């Protein structure tokens, strides 16, 4: 039987919760602040959407679920429980299905952790962002370091798998500051860390300030580069090497859900602004949904579908996506898989050129970035992408 390309990566479900307590000034995610959230109404919509995408992917084994946001830790545990129950009724799931929920580390949310665990969540990803109160305020966060640490302890006692996020290259942050802060984070009992360089996104409060020249104290490219390499060095030493550009884990503790993206598997997207890649009858479709929470709800309730677009991806786009996602992984990509997607091999001259300058390693069927290459991945991809 012919194997669809997605099967090399697995199948997961992404579920988007679009609300937050407050909007962070750097964030360009689909997140909204609302006083009135009718969680019952949201429950019905989610369940209906799960049924819809379930029908399209009938019989597949579901490997992972990810509650992302926004701030999914605002969801009632009963809502999360109903969703997970519906999921289990819709797909056969793998024995050890990974179910992650993103949580903001405030005391209110920590109070729900046990409820999430009872609902079937088995992994928590917390947005700690900084271990410095002043910087947390400048990032517009509602929690303090002490609160984050307390929430972390609760999470640690409740779940086997806990990860947290930090943002570096913040305003007025020096390489030495970051070294100290990250060292401290690495002493916490953690098995997974997402460490992001602060990105100034247009359309955010930081983006506007930046364009007006009012966002001061950002490290220049060279010192942001230093911080990236410090990150690699410290995490490596602590036994948590990078497995992707910004993600570090003890071997075996990688986020299985996120690896589906990078290994270019299939994922269904449910919720406002959720994207999916779903292969149906041999065609890989890129799906999306309305961004606005109200528009999405209406669409689900009135038409029975929250889908806005579903586009059959041309092979060329799939090839590009496979490269740009796959090369983010330390493990890189499979050249034979590339060839069967692209219907021709990846240009050997290019591979040799890039190997010569030390940014990729070519070993048999495997092409992967070197640590040096990972740091300049955009430049590597500009070379590798098909014309």
């Amino acid at each position: 039987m012919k194997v669809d390309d997605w099967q090399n990566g697995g199948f997961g479900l992404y579920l988007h919760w679009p609300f937050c307590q407050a909007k962070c000034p750097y964030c360009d995610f689909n997140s909204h602040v609302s006083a009135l959230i009718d969680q019952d109404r949201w429950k019905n919509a989610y369940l209906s959407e799960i049924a819809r995408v379930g029908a399209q992917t009938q019989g597949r084994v579901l490997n992972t679920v990810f509650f992302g946001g926004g701030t999914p830790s605002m969801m009632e545990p009963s809502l999360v429980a109903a969703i997970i129950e519906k999921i289990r009724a819709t797909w056969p799931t793998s024995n050890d299905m990974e179910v992650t929920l993103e949580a903001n580390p405030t005391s209110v949310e920590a109070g729900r952790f046990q409820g999430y665990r009872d609902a079937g969540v088995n992994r928590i990803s917390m947005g700690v962002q900084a271990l410095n109160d002043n910087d947390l305020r400048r990032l517009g966060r509602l929690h303090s370091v002490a609160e984050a640490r307390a929430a972390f302890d609760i999470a640690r006692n409740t779940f086997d798998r806990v990860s947290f996020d930090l943002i570096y290259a913040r305003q007025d942050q020096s390489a030495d500051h970051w070294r100290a802060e990250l060292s401290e984070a690495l002493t916490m009992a953690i098995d997974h860390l997402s460490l992001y360089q602060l990105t100034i996104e247009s359309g955010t409060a930081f983006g506007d300030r930046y364009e007006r020249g009012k966002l001061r104290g950002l490290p220049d490219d060279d010192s942001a580069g230093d911080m990236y390499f410090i990150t690699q060095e410290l995490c490596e030493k602590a036994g948590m090497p990078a497995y992707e550009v910004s993600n570090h884990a003890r071997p075996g503790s990688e986020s299985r859900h996120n690896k589906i993206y990078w290994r270019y598997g299939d994922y269904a997207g449910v919720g406002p602004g959720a994207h999916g890649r779903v292969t149906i009858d041999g065609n890989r479709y890129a799906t999306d949904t309305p961004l606005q929470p109200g528009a999405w709800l209406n669409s689900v309730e009135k038409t029975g579908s929250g889908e806005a677009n579903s586009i059959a991806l041309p092979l060329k786009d799939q090839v590009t996506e496979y490269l740009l996602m796959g090369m983010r992984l330390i493990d890189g990509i499979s050249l034979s898989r590339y060839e069967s997607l692209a219907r021709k091999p990846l240009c050997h001259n290019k591979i040799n050129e890039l190997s010569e300058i030390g940014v990729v390693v070519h070993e048999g069927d495997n092409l992967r970035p070197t640590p040096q290459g990972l740091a300049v991945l955009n430049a590597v991809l500009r070379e590798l992408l098909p014309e």
Partner: protein
Amino acid sequence: MTELKNIRNFSIVAHIDHGKSTLADRLIQLTGTVAERDMKEQLLDAMDIERERGITIKANTVRIEYPAKDGETYVLNLIDTPGHVDFAYEVSRSMQAVEGSLLVVDASQGVEAQTLANVYQAIDADHEIVPVLNKVDLPAADCDRVAEQIEDVIGIDATDAVRISAKTGIGIPDVLEAIVTRLPAPKGDRDAPLKAMLVDSYYDAYLGVVVIIRVIDGVIKKGDRIKMMRTGGLYPVDRLGVFRPAMQNIAELGPGEIGFLTASIKQVRDTRVGDTITHEKKGCTEPLPGFKPAQPVVFCGLFPVDSAEFEDLRDAIEKLALNDASFSYEMETSAALGFGFRCGFLGLLHLEVIRDRLEREYGIDLITTAPSVIYHVHMKDGTMQELHNPADMPDLTYVDHIEEPRIKATILVPDEYLGDVLKLCQDRRGIQQDLTYAGTRAMVVYDLPLNEVVFDFYDRLKSVTKGYASFDYQMIGYRADFLVKMQVLVNDEPVDALSTMVHRDRAEQRGRAMCEKLKELIPRHMFKIPIQAAIGGRVIARETLSAMRKDVTAKCYGGDATRKKKLLEKQKAGKKKMRQFGKVEIPQQAFINALKMDD
């Protein structure tokens, strides 16, 4: 046809921006030549580039009618000329077609370098000159001082200079009276065989080639069969007319009149400015002396960024050349840039104008290589080669010596900047010829190598004098000097398009400056790149562009794939704006910016 005594022909000349075209506007307006609602500023500057840059590039002729105080109505043919030194040729040939000049001087600025250059040309052309002091509306205008300056520096009587504001209209009636009373009527013989001067020609999409003529003797009529005396071309006159400034047909043109004809001429190149037009039968025997053709002095290579656009570039260049005989081109191949053209221009502004038009009107992205001049390379066997492109420099073992073109540059500058100007000229290997004062302004004359001037001399001059200096130049001939070809190597590969001729004594300095510039202009790559300048294999300057440290997107999850894909595709397309040299990509503007010196 108009009686000779009722005709006045004149050119309006001045330093750049002193208000020639604005004065032309007022003359056109006050005589009611153009309806009020059709008036606009610098009406005659019709080309896009002229309007955008606010300067005149092509000379323009207009016929206006003026009922004078003496009760007679006069036909006035005015020619508005460009002020920029690159187009000095337009001024000189316009002057051949008329008997007088209005010398416009900005009363807030005073006499400038092109004021002088224009006066000397007007005197050579035996013109009657009427000085006009313009911009009297400006608070900084000082007519008495400027009148004095005209007498001191130029040596013409300025007591009767007409004081005007071309902007507000003050004094315009006086200009019209002065034209009629102070400029001579043309001479000519209506009954003699036809003798007309071919003043200019241009290509019109509807009419074909339009020829601007000045009739000296005889009468030309529609349907006449004419002969171009120098090119030997024979044509029937299809159409005859005058510019008001729109084209207006007319039955005939007689002595002293200026107008245009069309005659099924295919290309501007089939006409020669300065040629004499006569009748095919019973024509005149003695042609007019003619003009020296305009010679391109600055050369550069133009290459399409996308080599697939070479044929489009060829088409575009051919079309532009149809309408601009002063621009030359021949095919060129460069190891680095592929196929393109080596083009010759009257000066840097001319180069910029042509390049702009190619890019905008024809939508072709271009790489412009370093401008160069024509060197005379004298070989040991006694022969001489003209070198238009440093990349073609012959093997040194066969070369005896090299000569370069020199110019006489005249610079007028307020006292306080004199030191900076002298330093600039000295740095550019200038030899001072003269230094005189006119009030608080100094006039310096330098003998300079043209290659030190073509590139950024004018920009530098403007910047060291805060825009207060003015500059004019003339070619004076060739002289030998110790010149060498400097090569640039990027990542150890020579880039022929960056080769330049330099004086040996300045080579190190130039080389260093160029390597530093390139280091800024070339984006960082994934590996480090040595940039070197070399003379005949010996490295004289070197810089290293370090490898890029980090360029990676921090976050990229399932929801980001679409957006990141578009971003990368855009970046990938951006690479097409660069040229590949071995493993290195060089952005197109680097080829010209690398040479700009910040001294």
